[in-house]
């Protein structure tokens, strides 16, 4: 199968306009005849549900949590980018496009990224109209700050809770449609399978997490907005319930999984404390605007930070990258932190941390100003660590944060299964091999508010969709498969808990498929994961019953998928014999230890096709063509 990205012809800046004109429309009177299932209620899912319902489609929306407002978009801290150029500092759609393409280390599609930059401005307008309380200047105008990987101030924010406020905006819009009877909401539902009939996505199987019942829902199209797979590492900044299962079930039904090895390790997180740790907490990247990253110059220096004089400190980012300093992109900042710790310059109890120091910023601007900008983050840091960042530098270390890989989609956000659309972090499309800060919120809302409403209409107008309902035999088959797998998980009654397997999987991936990878390690990881998977299906202890509110069973299902998906990630990492963005293979690096791409052989999207359990997936290549930007070695010096 040849991957057709369906990128429209014509000049870059006209592609989306032209495409919107060429897309078929659904007669307004006919829209209510089409039913669409939306899985997930984060920024992408909530904005999709609301917008499609406003247009007149019949929408059914599903979320794992007890309320749509709790989706993990709520945790995003720093901000959302837009090319408004309100600051008159040289920004433009073109510059946002270019920064994003370059930040992604030239592994994303020009046309998608350009469209993202174009609609970024509409997003801000939309959110303001919804009453999102963005930060303001004294004039009443919107305030901006700068973020990693950019030299302009284009990030809009609401304190350190931008994701929360944007999500509550979208949740408000969704709630309005629920009240109007246009969206039917199903909470505490976990999508466990995709139902494909005559080659098209026509429904889903979900588990009711309260009763344990399996439920069937049919429709004319399915939208997945189920987020990323960072929790495959066990420890990440993701919420505990974030998982790959809906996407992975779709992969097994024929949706290709693109670039699974592209994972983002965020540089500024609170370091790991102990083995009981369940998750890692991000400290917004915006802190790098004022905080200075440093380690002691002498390896093994265990003195307290206050005892280390200015001349004994190495502000390694400022020294190595004078152009961007502390504002280099995330992958660069993370790798450098790891390198410092590898040189025995790490700080704190575990020696796996670097300092992020606000002393100079407080001296310069005063504690009030810094407190206003970052007060809530400082408070959160103090709660977790019992250290006061106003008085002593923060200790930070990289942690798994975001996954650029995801289900492959074309320009219309449709996967390789017709009728299955994938949005937000769940798809692969816009961030290449490294996402810039404040771009995830932008993409989630772009997909949901401004792209899917056009493209899904064209699909529905064109596809001959026969009438089907939940009585179709594919629903029974799918439901039976799910039931069998659940029963199997419960019946094993082994000697190890789900979490203990998950932790071990996480350790394998962090060690061999994390910030730095090499071929022998990846091969080793592949074997370790396989062995662990075999053990899982012989020795896991789930407990409880299937027809019950059973949180251990919820995790058991997700970990079973992670154990398969982890191997896919490792295989993809092995296939990509180059370094780019977040994928750093030690064999391919420049003299100064930066990621060294191989554009001749790897300037493509790699999309895995499922070919059966325990069979190697087939990787398809979508070549990336760059007509508007020149491929260069990324430099932030």
């Amino acid at each position, binding site marked *: 199968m040849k991957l057709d990205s369906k990128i429209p012809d014509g000049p870059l800046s006209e592609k989306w306009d032209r495409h919107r004109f060429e897309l078929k429309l659904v007669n307004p009177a006919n829209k209510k005849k089409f039913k669409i299932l939306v899985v997930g209620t984060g920024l992408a899912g909530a904005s999709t549900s609301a917008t499609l319902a406003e247009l007149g489609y019949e929408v059914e929306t599903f979320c794992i949590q007890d309320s749509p407002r709790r989706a993990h978009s709520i945790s995003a801290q720093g901000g959302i980018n837009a090319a408004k150029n309100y600051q008159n500092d040289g920004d433009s759609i073109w510059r946002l496009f270019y920064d994003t393409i370059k930040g992604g280390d030239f592994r994303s599609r020009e046309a998608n990224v350009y469209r993202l930059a174009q609609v970024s401005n509409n997003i801000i307008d*939309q959110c303001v109209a919804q009453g999102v309380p963005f930060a303001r200047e004294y004039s009443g105008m919107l305030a901006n700050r700068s973020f990693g990987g950019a030299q302009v101030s284009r990030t809009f924010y609401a304190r350190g809770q931008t994701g929360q406020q944007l999500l509550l905006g979208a949740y408000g819009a969704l709630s309005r449609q629920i009240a109007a009877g246009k969206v039917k909401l199903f909470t505490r539902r976990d999508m466990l399978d995709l139902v494909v009939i005559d080659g098209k996505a026509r429904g889903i199987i979900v588990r009711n997490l309260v009763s344990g019942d399996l439920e069937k829902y049919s429709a004319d199209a399915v939208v997945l907005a189920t987020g990323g797979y960072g929790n495959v590492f066990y420890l990440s900044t993701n919420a505990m319930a974030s998982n790959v299962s809906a996407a992975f079930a779709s992969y097994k039904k024929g949706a290709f999984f693109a670039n699974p090895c592209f994972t983002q390790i965020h540089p500024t997180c609170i370091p790991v404390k102990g083995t009981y740790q369940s998750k890692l907490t991000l400290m917004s990247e915006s802190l790098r605007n004022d905080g200075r990253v440093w380690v002691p110059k002498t390896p093994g220096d265990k003195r307290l930070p206050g005892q280390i004089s200015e001349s004994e400190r190495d502000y390694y980012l400022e020294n190595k990258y004078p152009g961007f300093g502390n504002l280099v992109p995330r992958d660069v900042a993370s790798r450098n932190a790891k390198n410092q710790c590898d040189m025995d310059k790490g700080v704190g109890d575990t020696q796996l941390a670097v300092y992020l120091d606000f002393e100079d910023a407080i001296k310069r601007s005063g504690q009030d100003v810094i407190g206003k900008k970052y007060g809530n983050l400082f408070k959160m840091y103090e709660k977790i660590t019992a250290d006061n960042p106003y008085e002593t530098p923060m200790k930070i270390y990289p942690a798994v944060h975001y996954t650029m890989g995801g289900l492959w989609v074309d320009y219309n956000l449709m996967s390789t299964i017709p009728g299955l659309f994938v949005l937000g972090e769940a798809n692969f499309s816009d961030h290449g091999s490294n996402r810039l800060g404040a771009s995830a919120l932008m993409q989630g809302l772009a997909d949901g508010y401004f792209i899917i409403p056009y493209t899904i209409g064209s699909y529905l107008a064109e596809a001959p969709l026969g009438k089907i309902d939940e009585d179709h035999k594919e629903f029974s088959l799918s439901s039976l498969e799910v039931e069998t797998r659940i029963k199997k998980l419960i019946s094993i009654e082994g000697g190890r808990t789900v979490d203990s397997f998950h932790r071990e999987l996480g350790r394998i991936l962090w060690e061999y498929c994390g910030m730095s990878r090499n071929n022998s390690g990846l091969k080793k990881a592949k074997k370790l994961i396989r062995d662990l998977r075999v053990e899982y299906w012989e020795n896991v202890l789930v407990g409880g019953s299937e027809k019950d509110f059973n949180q251990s069973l919820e995790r058991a299902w997700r970990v079973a998928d992670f154990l398969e998906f982890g191997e896919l990630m490792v295989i993809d990492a092995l296939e990509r014999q180059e370094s780019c963005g977040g994928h750093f293979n030690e064999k391919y690096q420049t003299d100064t230890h930066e990621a060294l791409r191989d554009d001749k052989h790897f300037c493509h999207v790699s999309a895995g096709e499922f070919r059966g359990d325990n069979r190697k997936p087939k990787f398809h290549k979508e070549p990336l063509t760059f007509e508007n930007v020149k491929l260069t070695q990324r430099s932030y010096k």
Partner: protein
Amino acid sequence: MKQANGDKCIKLKLKVWRQKTQGSKGRFESFKAENISKDMSFLEMLDVVNEKIILSGKPPIAFDHDCREGICGSCGAMVNGRAHGPEKGTTLCQLHMRHFSDGDTVVIEPWRSRAFKVVKDLVVDRSALDKIIQAGGYVSVNTGGVPDGNAIPVPQEIAEKAMDAAECIGCGACAAACPNASVMLFTGAKISQFALLPQGHPEAKKRVLAMVGKMDQLGFGNCTNEKECAAECPKEISIINIARMNREFLKSGLFS
């Protein structure tokens, strides 16, 4: 990874509310929580206890949780009679065990409120909060066709106040802490956000009447100025928001 230091570990006695389903009778069950590092969060302590329960073949304690960084609003329980435990301005997931002492007895109960039915153990049904928002907790604007972001200037001070109110995470602690099971802090916060911002003004009257009406209909009680809600709110949402809601409510009646 180094293990937690022995001297930083404590032992606790837990008394946890167990209830199989919504209709069934509940009871307290005791557990020993041993080798609890002071650096653990409260939920991580429960994880450790649950691992042991699972290995002993018994059903683990069910509790809602997700982001574990104090923003999603999923978690929450009464800990020794206090919503989200003893620390001010803290969700349960951000409460750390360093605030407990070796040998403490810790009583853990689900939110108690007529409108929040127990689903299982510490998990409650908070869909009533969503219903209040559905009644009008938004600006009725469709996607598209809106003016430029800077066409609606908002004075910084107003934006900050709106943000103070908008920080609510919808956890339900306010209703759980209130002797009347009133959810006015939650509702008042949303009404305040839109009463402050110009975007919310066109629908202000309709909104306050609909949301307050829904709140009453769902069985939440009234405010008698106990201020327990604001004292226990993990986001420290101010009681001013209730006053503002009342003002909006009066206004809507006086001038309609």
